[in-house]
């Protein structure tokens, strides 16, 4: 361009002007384009925001967002509704200030004690039970706030309560007439209401036994209901497991003698006292031992052994009974399971014993399993970790 100095001013300036205009025009275009894009992005963001707000505001769960400094950044109408706080007067306030609002106290307490992400339910007022879930909000591994979700679980809780109420009532209502039958039969059998002959006595004794089974069944059903509610285990106390097993064995003496079954108790290595819910462990041992005797033919032996290693105690209960067929072994610990071979032989049971036993052992962080061969016998094992007292 510099070489062409001879060119006329007008010529140059026209060209330059054109170029300049072009340059001027282009940034304007670019600017307009950029502005347009920005606007579009803004609109999109706005739309996104509106969409999220619409979701948040219409969500059936309560949602609250706290910022980095634990100030309340957002609360949706449902959360305000749940907590009985209306309007914007709490947005922006710190969690410490929120703790002063009565209906928020529980929530704030939970919030401050929380770990990373977790869930807990709490009661608000008379009829509302909320389950609170908190989760951290992260941006590039940095915590930018906390999300709190409040879910209404009142209905579930109500149904749960109704269920336990029902179980409790039916257990009570069923037990009362059964008690009457038990008492009257016992008094007749014992000859307290006048003499009866042997045949009468035998029949009535059988009726008494049937009634006892019914009572036992109700006790088992109550246990199952408690297990499902998660309220089954109570306090653990230092327990001598050897003595506990011995007492359980003794309670079967009569039955075993009547059926000519020998019960052998082998203590390989006696553990010191363990922290157990003794009455429940007794139920577990009782249920396994009851099966071992019930499903063994007369004249056989049942062997219980107790052993320990560094970490666990181990109990095994071995019988020489009819065994459990391979195809059914998976179902043994399920509720109401009864072996096909057992039902055919008309041996009574409700199929709850092993389900209860398993729940008890597992509640002690232990394991339960078995080995079985058809017509050879079954061995049940359970282990319970030893915790130093």
């Amino acid at each position: 361009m510099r070489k062409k100095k001879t060119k006329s001013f007008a010529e140059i300036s026209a060209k330059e002007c054109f170029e300049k205009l072009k340059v001027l025009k282009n940034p304007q275009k670019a600017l307009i384009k950029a502005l347009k894009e920005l606007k579009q992005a803004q609109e999109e963001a706005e739309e996104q925001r509106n969409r999220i707000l619409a979701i948040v505001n219409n969500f059936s769960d309560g949602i609250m967002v706290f910022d980095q400094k634990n100030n309340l950044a957002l609360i949706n109408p449902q959360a305000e509704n749940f907590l009985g706080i209306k309007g914007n007067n709490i947005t922006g306030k710190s969690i410490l200030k929120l703790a002063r609002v009565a209906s928020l106290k529980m929530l704030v307490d939970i919030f401050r004690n929380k770990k990373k992400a977790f869930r807990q339910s709490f009661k608000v007022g008379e009829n509302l039970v909320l389950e609170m879930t908190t989760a951290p909000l992260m941006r590039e591994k940095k915590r930018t706030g906390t999300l709190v979700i409040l879910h209404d679980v009142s209905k579930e809780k109500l149904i749960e309560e109704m269920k336990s109420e029902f179980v409790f009532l039916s257990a009570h209502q069923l037990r009362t007439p059964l008690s009457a039958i038990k008492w009257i039969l016992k008094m007749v059998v014992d000859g307290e209401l006048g003499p009866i002959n042997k045949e009468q006595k035998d029949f009535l004794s059988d009726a008494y036994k049937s009634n006892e089974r019914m009572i036992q069944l109700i006790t088992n059903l109550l246990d199952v209901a408690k297990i499902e509610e998660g309220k089954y285990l109570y306090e653990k106390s230092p327990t001598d497991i050897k003595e506990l097993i011995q007492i359980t064995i003794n309670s079967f003496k009569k039955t075993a003698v009547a059926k000519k079954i020998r019960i052998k108790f082998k203590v390989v290595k006696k553990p010191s006292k363990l922290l157990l819910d003794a009455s429940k462990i007794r139920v577990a041992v009782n249920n396994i031992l009851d099966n071992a005797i019930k499903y063994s033919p007369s004249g056989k032996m049942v062997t219980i052994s107790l052993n320990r290693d560094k970490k666990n105690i181990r109990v095994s209960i071995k019988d020489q009974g009819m065994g459990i067929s391979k195809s059914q072994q998976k179902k043994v610990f399920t509720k109401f399971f009864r072996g096909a071979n057992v039902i055919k032989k008309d041996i009574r049971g409700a199929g709850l014993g092993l389900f209860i036993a398993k729940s008890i052992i597992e509640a002690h962080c232990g394991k339960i399993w078995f080995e079985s061969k058809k017509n050879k016998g079954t061995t049940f094992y359970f282990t319970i970790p030893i915790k130093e007292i």
Partner: protein
Amino acid sequence: MAKKILVVEDDKFLRELIAQKIMKEGYDVIEAVDGEKGAESIKKEKPDLVLLDLILPGVDGFEVLAKMKSDPATNQIPVIILSNLGQKDDIEKGLEMGANDYLIKAHFTPAEIMEKIRSVLK
């Protein structure tokens, strides 16, 4: 003089059955069909022992127990709870409130109940 036992039980059949059994053993028996009458009888008759059901129409057994244990005129009378409530919390509550024993109806025969009565009265 024969010792006097109060039976608080709303189920007529159970009440009569156990009352009959107790009488046969040579004790005197007073019967009450609900909690209110039970509490009245305790105050008026001062029995030597109370056999107390828990689920009763109106005033329940726990209330009867609380009432008699807070009254210095009756708080020394021994109580055996005879109920079909068998949950551990009920049993613990009953014993904590001052009952001498807690029997679940369906788990005891009349003869066994008598044995408990005798041992408490000793």
